[in-house]
């Protein structure tokens, strides 16, 4: 029977209370992310650094160079792997996974990630479009769909967990002033696109004769935060058992298409990285998918002629748009739709009293870690001039955190591929797919207009 429901009636039905602090991945992402940032800071003020353990493959042009790098740094990689295993195993074991399944699975994930990371550091990688996020995704999908892995290995392929840890670490590399400066525009832009997308999907679905609860589940999947939004809204409105899998299939298919299409179109149009990141943040459907697309495009800066901006700008504008602009509102969407479902839609077998507290229960808590990490590092480094910051703080404090963030994202991108088994997805059906696709068109076009024209100067100048 259910393991994480609240027994008894003293606690409100939807709440986990304090148990959420150790029973939800969001909180573990905060503990791990902020823990790393705090250790990095303590080492920094004591004249030391996380640099040794935050090792990454170096740029190389021959296999001899690559071999020499690994030969010289094998101990650092071994200790880093040990660190990841220790912290992730502790977290996932408390969440309920078996360490005996998680550890071998994570070792496999780390080894493949290391190979992909190394390929991305080849000096000819850009020439052949070997962007690590895309390579990780493709390699993962090839393995899971053509070769196949034992099901128990899924224990280590935790897409959401790794992306949340990465986003908290990302906060430490983004000045808090940028969140304050760009946040309101991100919220405005994302709100316009989210509401338009939801309404288009919902009403197209209704015109096609789909059930209101399925339309709402699909609409939220397209408008807010993909699969996570779809299941949140399905739960809030009491959708049919098959509605959530239909939405999941539709979101996955479009999210994977967009990982490749959005950077490709942005490249063809020569969009600055900040603008492309904002567009991807508005028009992608899942955090992990969008980060893969944004990071791929950002990596082109400085390597492909005509693409202005920095790699970080793409990732920062994406994160602000997707996380601050869209994700944090899921609880409000759920509450409002629960009220509408209760008061306006056809009755179902079960009833509910919509509870405003779900705005907090469903809040993606990892965002708190992202904001705290940003505020903390900004506060801790205020006394440095820009020159000193770049010379002293970046290589010793921010750089290693950024390198660990890159690792977390590669684990995430590879896990997407390894967990996406197309033949196992539910059959979505023509009508739900059509309704969702109509919303995709509106979402992509509107997102492009707002990112590349209306707020273009805003996103181009992010972090400058």
């Amino acid at each position, binding site marked *: 029977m259910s*393991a994480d429901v609240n027994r008894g009636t003293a606690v409100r039905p939807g709440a986990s209370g304090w148990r959420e602090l150790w029973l939800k*991945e969001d909180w573990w992402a905060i503990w791990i992310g902020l823990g790393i940032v705090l250790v990095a800071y303590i080492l920094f003020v004591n004249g030391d650094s996380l640099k040794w353990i935050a090792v990454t493959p170096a740029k190389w042009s021959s296999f001899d160079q690559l071999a020499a790098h690994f030969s010289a740094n094998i101990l650092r990689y071994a200790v880093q792997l040990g660190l990841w295993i220790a912290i992730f195993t502790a977290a996932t074991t408390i969440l309920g996974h078996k360490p005996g399944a998680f550890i071998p699975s994570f070792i496999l994930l780390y080894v493949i990630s290391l190979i992909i990371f190394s390929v991305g550091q080849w000096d000819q990688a850009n020439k052949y479009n070997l962007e690590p996020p895309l390579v990780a995704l493709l390699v993962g999908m090839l393995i899971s769909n053509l070769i196949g892995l034992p099901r128990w290995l899924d224990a280590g392929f935790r897409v959401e967990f790794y992306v949340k840890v990465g986003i908290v670490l990302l906060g430490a590399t983004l000045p808090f002033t940028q969140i304050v400066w760009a946040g309101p525009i991100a919220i405005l832009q994302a709100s316009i696109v989210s509401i338009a997308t939801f309404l288009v999907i919902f009403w197209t679905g209704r015109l096609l004769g789909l059930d209101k609860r399925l339309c709402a589940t699909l609409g939220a999947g397209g408008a807010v935060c993909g699969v996570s939004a779809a299941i949140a809204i399905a739960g809030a409105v009491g959708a049919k058992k098959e509605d959530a899998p239909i939405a999941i299939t539709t979101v996955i298919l479009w999210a994977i298409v967009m990982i490749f299409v959005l950077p490709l179109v942005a490249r063809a149009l020569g969009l600055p990285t900040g603008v492309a990141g904002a567009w991807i943040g508005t028009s992608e459907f899942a955090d992990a998918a969008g980060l893969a697309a944004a990071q791929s495009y950002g990596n082109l800066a400085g390597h492909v002629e005509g693409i202005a901006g920095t790699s970080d700008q793409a990732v920062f504008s994406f994160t602000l748009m997707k996380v601050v602009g869209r994700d944090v509102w899921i609880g409000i969407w759920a509450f409002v739709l629960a009220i509408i479902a209760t008061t306006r839609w056809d009755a179902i077998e079960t009833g509910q009293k919509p509870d405003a507290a779900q705005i907090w229960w469903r809040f993606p808590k990892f965002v708190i870690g992202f904001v705290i990490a940003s505020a903390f590092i900004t506060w801790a480094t205020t006394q440095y001039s820009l020159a000193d910051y770049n010379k002293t703080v970046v290589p010793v404090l921010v750089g290693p955190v950024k390198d660990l963030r890159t690792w977390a994202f590669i684990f995430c991108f590879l896990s997407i591929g390894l967990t996406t088994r197309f033949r196992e997805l539910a059959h979505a059906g023509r009508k739900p797919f059509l309704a969702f696709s109509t919303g995709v068109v509106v979402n992509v076009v509107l997102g492009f207009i707002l990112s590349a024209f209306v707020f273009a100067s805003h996103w181009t100048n992010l972090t400058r």
Partner: protein
Amino acid sequence: MGWLFTRQASEGTEAGHCGICRHFRNDPAYLEAVLKGLTSFSSAYASVRGNDGLCTRHDRYLGPGFYCADYSPAEGS
């Protein structure tokens, strides 16, 4: 149709909500096994799910605060 909803819903009791009903399953591992594709871009361990789960009686995916006339207390509730 709101009146109909209210009438039907009132046949259940809020005290006997889904969260403590034997027909309700919201174990994250179970949900990840049942909702195919969920782990590709999300997780049953995420905050956004709250404590939602599946009603095996009515084949609905819903929150633990729902209630209906078929409520049957789970063991230990």
